[in-house]
């Protein structure tokens, strides 16, 4: 089949390419309207990569976005819309930080303990919506949004000075994780330090791919996602799939903040970043839940986030980045849909044509 490869490429690569071009055009227009210079903006965005720690910063952010993106994708594959990754990763992070601050095991064991407790906390926090869904049929969208709000209260409680918090200047933080628990990074001198956790992110990506494509569970997951009724008829236990997918999603989300926690900050503060969960949703959408695609989405998102700093630095309104990110997500979804309909129509024509020739051929043979 000579036309197969280009078509696959067209289906997979064309939509994101179209989306990026479209959003770049939109931003050019926005810049021209706001009296900014698209040339300056583009130059700043491109040249920033070679300057200082920017390249490493992008990879570091992408590591975080990748983990949370995979967490979201696991749910998406099962048609579970786990908005709760936001709460799950923060609960995981604060649990890891508290456990790490309270213990002092030898190296290797200490970070392992922090990772395991963060993963367990993330999974447990995801278990609530899963249980509600399978026993009571409550939509996970509603419960996870609610639990995100609840997680803010839990965090405030946990890092309070009366519980596990310590006052540092005007900030409240958990007790620092001892040095044995740190995961050393790869230093590039004046170009920054790459999080050692990037290895874990890659491992998670590989594990995700293997699980999807080479395991029975992955097959059942995809089957349930694509056609729940067919999967059920094939003997897949839908409730079990929901619970396991949700737990896996929460567990992966629990890893999200660990690159920063174990590689740089060593404490969780009341100012620690939030909002990675929503980035994860965008990144998973961009990457079409595909392990490689999510990596691409995470890198793109990290690059754009970093651009906000660089653009601000050359006097271009940094809000342009928010416009670009929004436009990309929007147009990626639209262009996938356009391409999908186009492919569907092409497929129908092709099948129709083949059927037509087949009928003619059969008719010809019979005569």
């Amino acid at each position, binding site marked *: 089949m000579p036309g197969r490869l280009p078509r696959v490429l067209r289906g997979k690569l064309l939509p994101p390419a179209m989306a990026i071009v479209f959003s770049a055009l939109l931003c050019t227009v926005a810049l021209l309207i706001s009296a900014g210079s698209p040339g300056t903006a583009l130059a700043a965005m491109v040249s920033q990569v070679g300057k200082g720690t*920017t390249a490493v910063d992008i990879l570091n952010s992408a590591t975080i976005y990748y983990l949370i993106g995979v967490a979201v994708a696991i749910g998406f594959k099962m048609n579970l819309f786990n908005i709760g990754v936001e709460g799950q990763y923060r609960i995981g992070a604060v649990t890891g930080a508290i456990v790490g601050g309270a213990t002092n095991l030898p190296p290797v064991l200490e970070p392992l303990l922090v990772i395991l407790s963060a993963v367990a906390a993330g999974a447990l926090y995801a278990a609530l919506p899963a249980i509600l869904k399978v026993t009571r049929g409550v939509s996970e969208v509603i419960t996870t949004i609610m639990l995100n709000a609840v997680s803010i209260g839990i965090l405030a409680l946990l890092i309070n000075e009366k519980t596990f918090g310590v006052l540092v*200047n005007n900030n*409240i933080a958990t007790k620092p994780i001892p040095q044995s628990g740190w995961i050393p990074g790869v230093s590039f001198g004046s170009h920054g330090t790459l999080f050692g956790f990037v290895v874990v992110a890659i491992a998670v990506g590989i594990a995700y791919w293997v699980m999807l494509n080479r395991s029975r569970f992955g097959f059942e997951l995809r089957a349930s996602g694509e056609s729940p009724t067919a999967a059920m008829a094939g003997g897949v236990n839908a409730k079990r799939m929901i619970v396991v997918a949700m737990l896996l999603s929460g567990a992966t989300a629990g890893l999200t903040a660990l690159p920063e926690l174990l590689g740089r900050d060593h404490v969780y503060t*009341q100012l620690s970043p939030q909002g990675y969960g929503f980035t994860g949703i*965008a990144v998973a959408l961009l990457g079409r839940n595909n392990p490689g695609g999510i990596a691409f989405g995470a890198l793109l998102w990290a690059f754009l986030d970093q651009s906000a700093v660089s653009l*601000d630095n050359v006097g271009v309104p940094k809000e342009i980045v928010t416009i670009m990110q929004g436009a990309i997500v929007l147009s990626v979804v639209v262009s996938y849909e356009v391409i999908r309909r186009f492919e569907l129509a092409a497929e129908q024509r092709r099948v129709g044509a083949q059927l037509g020739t087949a009928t003619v051929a059969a008719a010809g043979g019979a005569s």
Partner: protein
Amino acid sequence: MRRMRGVAVVAIALTSVVSLAACAKDSAGSGGGGSTTSQGAGGCKYTDPPKATAASTTTTSDKKVDASGLKVGLAYDIGGRGDASFNDAAAHGLDRAKAELGVKDVRETTATPNESDAAKEARLRQLAQDGYNPIVTVGYAYGLPLANVAKDFPGTRFAIVDSTVDNAPNVTPLTFTEEQGSFLVGVIAAYKSKACHVGFVGGVQVPLIQKFQAGFDLGAKTAAPGIKIEDQYITPAGDPGGYQDPPKGRLKAQGELSAGADVIYQAAGNSGKGIFQAVKEKGNAYAIGVDSDQYKQPTLADYRDVIISSMIKSVDLAVFDYLRAVAGGDLATLPKVFDLAVGGVGYATSGGRIDDIRDIVEAYKAEIISGGIKVPTTPAAG
């Protein structure tokens, strides 16, 4: 497949909601407002104010310094220039330095909502790499990032508003004794309350805002030992939303007003507008502003008639003094803490609503400066 598309639509909606929320800014309302006349002393039994008389000291020297050679970098917290709060105050300090010290080369950068510490670090690194020196960071959120960056640029001088950084000789902390200024507005509140019942509304329950509460509570209690005080925070620590939520601020203030309080002190950033609104709707009640002289702020003009005073935190003075000290090559002239004695904190008298009790407030002010009254930074338990 249809479900998947639904999911996508929801995701887009959410993403845009998040960005919208990030961009949302309160626009100033418009409309008229009447004016009520100032009331005399209220319904409390007051202790005698201290006998000391006002003696304000100034440390500012009039030595001419030329800062035209300085490349000044400013890194604002979320909101940046134009937030009518402490970022704006820092910007005023910078503008004053431009006008009076001849500072020319300035680069101002602003944090994005929900950005990570990595972005803050990158912002500071880029400023330092481009040769900006000194670099002023506004807000304690820069504490951890600055600690990492300052190590790598030992030749660059940094300053940070509202925080200190340990083991960093090139970082100058610009901190304030918010509790002292809050003590004075606590005294004002006690004297202006007719019901002998006052209230405090904080934005987020973090140590910084608790300093405001601690000072206010003690000030009110010192002036009128029998006074009743309501203390509320809009959100708990970890949820910065409390600084950006006027409707919630309004609810909290309404709660305190209906409990009987008739003078409300707010330390809630942008949410303060909602608190002023509640006080104005209630009528026969007063509000006390924070950070800058809020009586004079154009965006709060509607509520001017209820704002009797403001606790002033002179971030602008600190930034200006710092830049002058750097230009003069003498950081040692800077006060360790911007306190009441050096004018780092104070209270506003615009509107003339507290003219009748100014002597009393000045007496307390002198007593704090002389060390006769020590104001704690954490609220008393219970």
